[in-house]
């Protein structure tokens, strides 16, 4: 039996699941926006602006979810500042400590990107905001924002691995799995917004759909590697959580969207919308399964003691 079965769950439940999901979409959106900002073309601008908005709103929601989940929400700043000395606090070996700073910087870059987007749309008259629309400063913001986007997308999985809990600490692949899932859900969320809002961006839509499908394939492969890496611990998934994993994540969230998206995507926005919704559902269920399957396991001694 893995030593991880002798620990207690931290009671990270729905607020954290929603944070992992929303934070993943925000992180994915910022790095998709950054790629288009750096290497795309003018016709991608509507999608870039949309992605910056999604990233900023996602960052705000993430911050609220994380703060509300604390036992003492008013002490949220203790994550960043030493309460006794007022100095910044950072532990590079603690993903939660690094993550708190990561979310802060992510929010900054998302905010600057959003400023540029608002200015470009003519909704913000403040002229310095133009610096974040095009030009060297916008490029720097895109590079740094892209890096932070990748970080926010993947660190949540690393955070789970750096515990002593069953499933989470029994594999080193959760970070990569969440990263690919964040990429696919972010692309799906942007596709959904574009198709629902009727934004004219067929070439960007095609690119997003292509990225989404690639991310889904990588997610599928990583999911398999993750399950194999669990070894005997994977037996936890024999039962209800295994069923949710297969039906909700694997079939509904990965295989079905891949099958639906296999056609000529640019001309079938309805099909893209369905695909996107399934990807979002699968991404959410992935986080539900990974978190709650471990949360339900309490210290093994009770079973062992009575065996």
């Amino acid at each position: 039996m893995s030593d991880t079965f002798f620990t207690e769950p931290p009671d990270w439940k729905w607020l954290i699941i929603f944070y992992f999901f929303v934070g993943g979409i925000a992180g994915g959106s910022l790095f998709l926006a950054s790629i288009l900002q750096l290497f795309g073309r003018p016709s991608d601008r509507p999608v870039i602006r949309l992605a910056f908005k999604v990233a900023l709103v996602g960052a705000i929601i993430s911050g609220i979810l994380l703060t509300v989940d604390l036992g003492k929400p008013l002490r949220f700043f203790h994550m960043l500042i030493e309460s006794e000395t007022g100095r910044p606090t950072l532990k590079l070996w603690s993903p939660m400590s690094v993550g708190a700073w990561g979310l802060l910087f992510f929010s900054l870059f998302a905010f600057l990107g959003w400023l540029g987007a608002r200015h470009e749309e003519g909704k913000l008259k403040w002229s310095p905001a133009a610096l974040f629309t095009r030009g060297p400063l916008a490029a720097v913001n895109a590079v740094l924002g892209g890096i932070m986007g990748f970080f926010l997308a993947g660190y949540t999985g690393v955070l789970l691995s750096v515990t002593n809990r069953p499933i989470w600490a029994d594999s080193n692949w959760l970070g990569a799995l969440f990263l690919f899932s964040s990429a696919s859900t972010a692309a799906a969320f942007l596709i959904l917004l574009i198709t629902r809002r009727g934004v004219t961006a067929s070439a960007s839509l095609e690119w997003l759909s292509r990225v989404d499908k690639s991310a889904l394939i990588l997610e599928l492969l990583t999911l398999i590697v993750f399950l194999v890496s669990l070894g005997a611990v994977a037996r936890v998934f024999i039962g209800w959580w295994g069923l949710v994993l297969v039906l909700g994540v694997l079939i509904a969230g990965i295989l079905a969207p891949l099958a639906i998206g296999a056609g000529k995507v640019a001309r079938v926005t309805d099909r893209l919308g369905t695909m996107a919704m399934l990807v979002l559902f699968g991404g959410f269920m992935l986080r539900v399964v990974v978190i709650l399957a471990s949360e339900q396991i309490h210290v093994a001694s009770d079973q062992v003691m009575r065996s």
Partner: protein
Amino acid sequence: MAEAMGFYTDTTVCIGCKACEVACKSWNQLPAREGGQPELSGMSYDNTVRLSGTTWRHVKFIEQFDAPYDGRWLMMSDVCKHCVQAACLEVCPTGAIIRTEFDSVVIQSDVCNGCRACIGACPFGVIDINPVSATAQKCTLCYDRLGVGLEPACSKACPTDSIQFGPISELRTRAETRVGQLQAAGEKRAYLYGADPDGALGGLNSFYLLVDEPEVYGLPRDPKLPSRNVAKSSLFSGLGAALMGIVGLVSLRKRRMDERSESDEGSRPTTTPPA
């Protein structure tokens, strides 16, 4: 730093009286569960069941009965191990968890913000949220008592000296003598869990004399630090990020090539050349 202090718990002389639990609750003014209503576990003679934010000492009853009158009853007073390399201290993002001058590990309740990272990190499942303070709490090795030269309440109350308090080096010597004594008396299974400073987590400042496998007592065989996964997990995530970046760029290139070939086809003459 003063000499490292801790507990040596000899489980062979524990009688399950739970005096340590009561003394701990009393000294630390820990609240009762369910407003003090009697609460039965319904599955054991042990009604405390587990360590929690309001129970920092717990006498485990290990009831192994295959049939009536045929079985074994082991008892073990469980507590925070005050690990030399502490997982909780390692992951705490706020600095609320500190190492004291007695080499014990203490959570500062006025700094903790209840993020619960330490709960999932502890390899022994010791830490929990105290519902009254809404912060993570556990045994402090009676830091306040140690400061004025008193021994912790639990070891003071233990009627059989199953829980012994003192300098770790002295406790180790005492524990090794006891193991030798038990083995000479025929109890060949007796051994020390967590006493080896070169062992898991650099040794435990609360170590045990056991007479069965660690798992039987609800203890991990080889407790580890959570940071063992930082490098590999981060590396795989980093590689994933690089791969995703490449996917994005390759997809952009593919889009450009597709459009170029489409425009090439569009500009090609559609009329059939004359024969």
